[in-house]
């Protein structure tokens, strides 16, 4: 678990500039011929191929029910693919033993539209929770939490409860929680869905900054303005199929 002198610089090392982000040719996410059929017979994904190299920023667009959420649930192994392979950071999730699943999930930070914060815990406790429940030594939790809170700009609000925060601050708390494990990949499921445009932009800026530090980001969104102006890679899903995968793309009206 301890990766003191790992060849791979940790998120904090990259953040503090002690070690430069390395652009490897590794692929963080590989989907190969993935089909997902739910027990009720509905087919959410059909023969999807997707490769996301390390450090990429990918928008996942498409109408509701196109399979965006299913794809994300496959990546955190909340569901298993019915056919094909889902590989995250070199691990084939279909072949992963059950007890190794938590280890993979710690490499992935997840951010949801509805934040999923615990209402009775403060900002600091919500973020620290992710470390505590994965067996981090208590002495290490505090400093790590303080660092990510500083990164997302919530140091002043650390002792407030989620109900005392604005929507943007709540979402930044969720991002801090996703970051605290030093993940390879951040999956954001419509993170700006509940926020007004100005706050949305601030949040996108934060995600871009995190991406610049080398964290791969996969973000599902309906926000055409954001997608169009950033000119990042766009993967469009429709009816469970990838219908478009372009780099430097815009949000098409058809999406």
């Amino acid at each position: 678990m301890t990766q003191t002198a790992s060849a791979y610089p940790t998120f904090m090392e990259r953040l503090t500039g002690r070690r430069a982000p390395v652009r490897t040719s590794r692929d963080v996410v590989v989907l190969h011929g993935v089909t997902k059929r739910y027990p009720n017979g509905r087919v959410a994904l059909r023969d999807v191929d997707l490769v996301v190299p390390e450090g990429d920023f990918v928008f996942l667009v498409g109408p509701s029910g196109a399979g965006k959420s299913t794809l994300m649930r496959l990546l955190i192994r909340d569901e298993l693919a019915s056919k094909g392979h889902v590989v995250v950071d070199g691990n084939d999730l279909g072949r992963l033993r059950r007890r190794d699943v938590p280890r993979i999930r710690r490499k992935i930070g997840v951010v949801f539209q509805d934040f999923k914060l615990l209402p009775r815990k403060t900002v600091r406790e919500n973020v620290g929770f992710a470390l505590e429940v994965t067996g981090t030594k208590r002495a290490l939790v505090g400093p790590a939490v303080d660092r990510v809170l500083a990164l997302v700009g919530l140091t002043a609000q650390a002792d407030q409860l989620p109900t005392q925060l604005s929507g943007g601050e709540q979402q930044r708390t969720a991002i801090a929680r996703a970051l605290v494990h030093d993940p390879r990949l951040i999956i954001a499921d419509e993170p700006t869905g509940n926020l007004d445009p100005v706050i949305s932009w601030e949040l996108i800026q934060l995600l871009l900054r995190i991406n610049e530090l080398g964290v791969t980001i996969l973000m599902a969104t309906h926000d055409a303005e954001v997608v169009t102006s950033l000119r990042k890679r766009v993967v469009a899903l429709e009816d469970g199929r990838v219908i478009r995968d372009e780099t430097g793309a815009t949000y098409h009206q058809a999406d």
Partner: protein
Amino acid sequence: MFAFIGFSLRRAWQGFWRNALMSLAATLTMVLMLLLLAGFFVLQNVLVASLSFVEQKVEVVAYVQNTATADQVDALVKHIGAMPEVASVTFVSREEALAKFRAMQTAQGRGDVTATLDTNPLYASLNVKLRSPGDLDTVTNALDGSPIVRNVLNIQALVERVTTVTTVIRNAGAVILGIVGLIVLFIVVNTIRLAVLARAEEIEIMRLVGASDAFIRWPFIFEGGLVGLLGALIAIGILAAAAQPASAAMAGFFNVLPLELGPVGRDTAALVLGTGLGLGVAGSWLSVRTYLIR
């Protein structure tokens, strides 16, 4: 490992108090259910004690020939007393029998009819107490086989009736205790399930951030154990407070019963503690399992 246990205990304690209302409701349910169970358990014990008291009243009386010598009587007393089915043998001589008869007449306020008799008309007897009324035949036959026994009082029909009644009551008591136990099990497990359900969101987040199953499961199990332990201790406290006046009342009511409350109290406490802890732990284990299966 210690860090893990420390973490789980700390989280269990936090979980208990952060959801204080739910936890106290679960504990209260536990207390009431344990009191119900303990009440039925004590009743069952009193019942069983009463029944064995009634059964011990079964006494085989064998009248001895007037011609029997003291040696012959001693030998018979020894022989019968040595049988494994026999609890005790007392020899009642003719004089004692007469004295008893007179005492009984006086107690009932009647005149002494025996004063008009020249000789003592009563026979000496062996009064044999049985360990179990089921052994009546064996003991009767053994007594009948002796040459100095004049006759054995036939109490077959009476004993059969007593045995039937006590068996039915004893089984009914066990069945009722079993049913009450099941009801307690369902209600307590359901209550704990609700308490865990209220924290579904927390469990989901733990799964998402990569907590291993053990880290999710054990805090809940400790919390369930805490509810069980607390419930059991409160229930035992209430029972202990109620025991003194209750046993005083019962001793007055059942003063004929050789009921020893010491062991019953100990058994009840053990039952309450064991059931409380067991149900708390098992209930939360089952409830959390639902979330960990995926």
